[in-house]
């Protein structure tokens, strides 16, 4: 699904290298998790993949189903099936959540040459998906993320994902700020989307989320690189011992 090879990224305005050769191969139908210390470059990886300004790729590549994503505009990446659930979802005053969702869904359909959803069909689908995520009608009417609590913002991200049905879903710390019940809801939302044709890259600090969303592969990122890859047991190891041992191994 997504092939990342030797990806090197620096800040555009500063001489600061953040990703120093990331290799990841994410197969269709799998859930990969990335863990790693603060500042190791996890969010940067997700931003670079989705096309945020301010970063410069100095080496390496990323291909989504064979297409060079680094060469595309952010909206083209979205239309190609890439989705990022933001670590910090953005507030957009004055743009209604519903308008936003509908514009996004229809923009992607249009880009793929599909017919736009009618207002009625759209409403039906949104209402149903919102309900399973316990997002009420009032929240749908409000401006995007404005005045939403931390957990509400995260649920709103998952609602967008459910509406857009992307192929490659990157979840950046979607569990942070969620209470125990919301974590279950969100995980169920994600699990409902698990499918042989869909891949997840779940960035998290905690095993807790991975109890609900069971990963196939766990990677540890440190200092801009994937330093260790293993099965679900790797996450448990981190949970118990922290990163010290793993990082020591790497240096050795």
């Amino acid at each position, binding site marked *: 699904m997504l092939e990342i090879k030797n990806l090197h990224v620096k800040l555009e305005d500063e001489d600061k290298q953040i990703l120093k050769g990331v290799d990841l191969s994410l197969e269709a139908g799998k859930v990969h998790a990335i863990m790693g210390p603060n500042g190791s470059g996890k969010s940067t990886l997700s931003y670079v993949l989705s*096309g945020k*300004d301010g970063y410069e790729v100095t080496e390496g590549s990323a291909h989504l189903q064979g297409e060079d994503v680094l060469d595309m505009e952010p*909206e083209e990446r979205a*239309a190609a099936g890439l989705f990022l659930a933001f670590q910090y979802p953005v507030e957009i*005053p*004055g743009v209604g959540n519903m308008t936003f969702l509908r514009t*996004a869904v229809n*923009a992607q359909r249009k880009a793929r040459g599909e017919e736009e959803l009618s207002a009625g069909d759209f409403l039906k689908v949104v209402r149903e998906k919102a309900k399973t995520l316990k997002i009420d009608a009032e929240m749908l009417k409000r401006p995007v993320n404005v005045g939403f609590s931390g957990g509400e913002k995260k649920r709103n991200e998952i609602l967008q994902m459910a509406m*857009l049905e992307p192929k490659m879903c990157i979840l950046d710390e979607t569990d942070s700020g969620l209470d125990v019940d919301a974590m279950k809801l969100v995980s169920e939302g994600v699990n409902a989307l698990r499918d042989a044709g869909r891949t997840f890259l779940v960035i998290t600090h905690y095993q807790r989320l991975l109890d609900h969303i069971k990963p196939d592969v766990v990677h540890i990122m440190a200092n801009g690189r994937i330093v260790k890859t293993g099965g679900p047991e790797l996450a448990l190891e981190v949970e118990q011992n922290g990163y010290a041992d793993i990082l020591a191994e790497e240096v050795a």
Partner: protein
Amino acid sequence: MGLPDIKTNLTDARLAAQPVPQSGAWLAAARDDALARLRAMGLPTKRDEYWKYTDPSTLTEAVAQSADVFDAADEAPLYDGIDRLKLVFVDGVFDVDASDDMAPEGVTIERLADAGAADIHWAKDLYGVLEAKGQSPVERPLAALNSATATDGVLIHVTGTPSKPISLIYRHADATSDATLHHVIKVDAGAEVTVLENGPAAARFNKCMEVDVADTGVFHHIRAQGRDHERRAVTHIFGRLGKESVFKSFTMTANGVLTRNEVVLELTGDDAQASVAGACMGDGAFHHDDTVFITHDAVNCESRQVFKKVLRNGAVGVFQGKILVQPDAQKTDGYQISQSLLLDDDSQFLAKPELEIYADDVACSHGSTSGAINEEALFYLRSRGVEKGTAEDLLVLSFLAEAIEEIESDDISEDILARLEAWLMRRRG
């Protein structure tokens, strides 16, 4: 104390080109008074403090600069779906044939050119009167010029609640037209009216509207200034608000090489509510100036000023807004916000927000900001598949939303929104 020669000469030249028309007794007297005011003040120049940000020379010069007529192609006119009483002016001249019958229920409407021929008229107590009152503490000579020389306009007396809005449509046909219109609107106690305005009117347009809203009267005003790129306009609204009355005025401006909109309101009765709002989108050779002066003279009144400007390609936006709270105007609630969204580094927003408060128990707030499009929000929208141009448009409309929300009627605000969307689409081609 004499006027500087430059102002005397400017005023003389203008009056030579635009003489005071003949009228019946009441109007002739009003025009004389206005002429005396004008002569005492002289027309403004860019050295005047009140014209620091806007050069008035093309508004004051004897002969108007020409302006091409905008071709709206097959676009539906604004307010098309709204049932309204249409009164049409072409290059500043009332067009009887194009207009609806002027005798709807709850209101009497007369043409200034007709009513002005009479010896006596109710409008005598308002025509040039509110304008004269609005000349202090700041002079507004172009309004006095208007009262002295206006050639047409309507006198609207609202006695009840007319079933539909009164729609003043200003067509522009002649590239060299220079129009001066003066309207007087009197809203009786308990009466309610909506006045719509749209269209460029002329190559150069000087319009004055005096509005007297009696106790518990309600006045709604929604205006869209025409899209002719080269048109120039100076407009004044003078409003007096009685007890528990409501006055709401919204203006949309897209295009126009020069626009100066002045609104001067006096809240004279307790518990009155005023709102003045504007949404403007300027591109290229565009200079738009909102100058607002609201005086609170009574207890427990509320006033709002909400102005939003989107500027690109060197467009200039100006806001001069003042809230004056007199010593007895306790419990005043005054709100003023003026913001610009600058879509590039060439565009400019100049703001002078002012509060002058002499009462001690008031809540007044004001804020003025100028900023670029929010890159984080833009990326967020694009990451969801929204194409860059569309995402920018959404953010522009969301920026203007607070001003548009000041419009009371949903039908009309939807119409305004659709027009703004069309403007954005047209720009992107």
